[in-house]
């Protein structure tokens, strides 16, 4: 018994140390976000702000900063992108799992093999394709190439493969058409899988950096991640005070989402051990 106690204590120590390592950068960032720049660059700031101030946050939402605009852009792109993804991925996954049609296997394997292609290969041609479509520097350029996610199409396909068939049969006896059955019956019943898909898709759009960096050139169309990065190339050196406040604000929506939709996050990573 005693041996088990020692083992558990070691586990707690390992877990606590790792938790502290994880929190360390965030705590300093949080602290710097409440500190004036001259304290931050003095080299002797402490975890508890010495000259507590809300000015950094006030600056972000003042009229001189583009920050509120970037935030709004991120919201628009992430929400639209997520909604489109949900419909297209769910419909495609449903067709691949549930409907009989010529060429089904071939389409399935074609999608599967495309999943192996690294993003770098697609990046340059997609830039030129978007340029030729006249879509550079628009929201569309951020949404259209990511309007589907092959991984999520497969996740939905897996879900519909194990979905009871009698539900659809009962509904079609009630006189609903095929398309009505899908949108009124199947779609609502698939809510847990759709929610999981939605959260990870939203997070993908919200945190995306490479595409906005390549496609967007007008500062007022920047998303949050691109806006954050633009703080670092100001001549006067990095304004750590503003940068840290902006970083903290950019993280908050996802953390709130995590806390509210905890169980769907866990489903997404198949960690269903705890009830």
């Amino acid at each position, binding site marked *: 018994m005693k041996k088990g106690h020692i083992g558990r204590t070691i586990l707690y120590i390992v877990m606590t140390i790792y938790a502290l390592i*994880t929190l360390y950068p965030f705590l300093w960032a949080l602290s710097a976000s409440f500190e004036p720049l001259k304290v931050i660059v003095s080299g002797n700031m402490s975890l508890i702000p010495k000259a507590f101030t809300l000015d950094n946050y006030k600056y972000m939402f003042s009229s001189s900063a583009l920050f509120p605009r970037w935030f709004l852009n991120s919201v628009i792109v992430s929400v639209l992108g997520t909604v489109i993804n949900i419909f297209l991925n769910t419909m495609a996954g449903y*067709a691949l799992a549930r409907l009989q049609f*010529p060429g089904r296997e071939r389409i399935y394997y074609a999608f599967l093999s495309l999943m192996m*292609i690294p993003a770098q290969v697609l990046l340059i041609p997609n830039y030129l*394709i978007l340029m030729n479509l006249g879509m550079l520097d628009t929201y569309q350029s951020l949404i259209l190439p990511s309007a589907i996610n092959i991984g999520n199409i497969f996740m939905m396909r897996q879900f519909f493969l194990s979905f009871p068939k009698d539900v659809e049969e009962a509904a079609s006896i009630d006189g609903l058409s095929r398309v009505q059955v899908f949108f009124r019956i199947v779609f609502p019943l698939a809510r847990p899988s759709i929610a999981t898909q939605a959260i990870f898709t939203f997070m993908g759009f919200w945190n995306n950096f490479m595409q906005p960096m390549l496609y967007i050139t007008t500062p007022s169309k920047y998303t949050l991640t691109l806006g954050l990065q633009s703080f670092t190339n100001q001549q006067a050196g*990095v304004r750590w005070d503003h940068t840290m406040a902006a970083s903290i604000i950019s993280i908050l929506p996802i953390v709130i989402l995590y806390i509210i939709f905890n169980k769907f*996050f866990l489903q997404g990573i198949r960690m269903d051990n705890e009830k």
Partner: protein
Amino acid sequence: MEAPVNTPKKKRFHLNRSQSEAVQAYAFLLPAAIIVLVFFVAAIVFALYMSFNKVNMYSETYEFRGLQNYTNIFSDGIALTALKNTALFSLVVVPTQTFFALLIAYALSNKNIRFKKMFRLIYFLPTLTSSAALTLIFMFIFNINGPINGFLTGIGLYKDPINFLQEPQYALKVIMVMNIWSTVPNFMTVYLASLVDLPDSLYEAAEMDGASSWQKLVHITVPYLRPITTYVLLMGIIGTFQMFDQAYIFSNGSGGPDNSTLTVALMVYQYAFGQMNTMGYACALAIFLAVVIYIVSRLAEKLNGGNGLKDM
């Protein structure tokens, strides 16, 4: 009396059951198929085509060069530096992140541990945060007046603060630390997911024989997780070989100081968008990178045994 069940209303088109099912299927697949055709299939063909050409973006001309773009890679000093940086990065980051991910997952899967929810939220934070915010936060804590310098001089490790961000010998190491720190939680959750299926009886039998926590980890958990470890290694290799955001933000796109943070992905970006006439070469580099990733992944799979992706 047989009631006429099917009294078809007059329709202009009448499809039978399987035809209408096929029509619905094609309609449901059409939007996804269009996106795939334009931004995946056409893009790959386009990339291959460009990789065999000298592309001049200014005059929009393509000159067929055969395999020259590919052979140029091996005499390009910058490309070799980028490859070396990327390989070193992968070699340090992948084993370290796998080790920590397994260790933390093992601790967190223990039935007797409390406060799991709290630990999980904390561990998950880096996964929720964008690479842009993470990189800025790390640049802040590692800056010359930042907390890391304060801490390390405070405990007497060295006297004068080090400029981690601008010294070529430290810059890539900072990105390594950041990358390990931010990817461990991802892989930890992958391990946790499969530890759920590990039968308790295995641990119980070992406990009866007086095995310690460490012995259980080494003799039961690690062998049991072997196929998952192959998967984690593969994902780690793919992720580190494609590392872009962190190097880009850290160096403001330059790969500096002194090319010390230049990764292959960052170099592809520079050749494609930094100059007017090297887009074809950039495509060749991207395809070369894809081939390298594929080969290294297969090697890692072979070395560790197990089927990796096929098991998932």
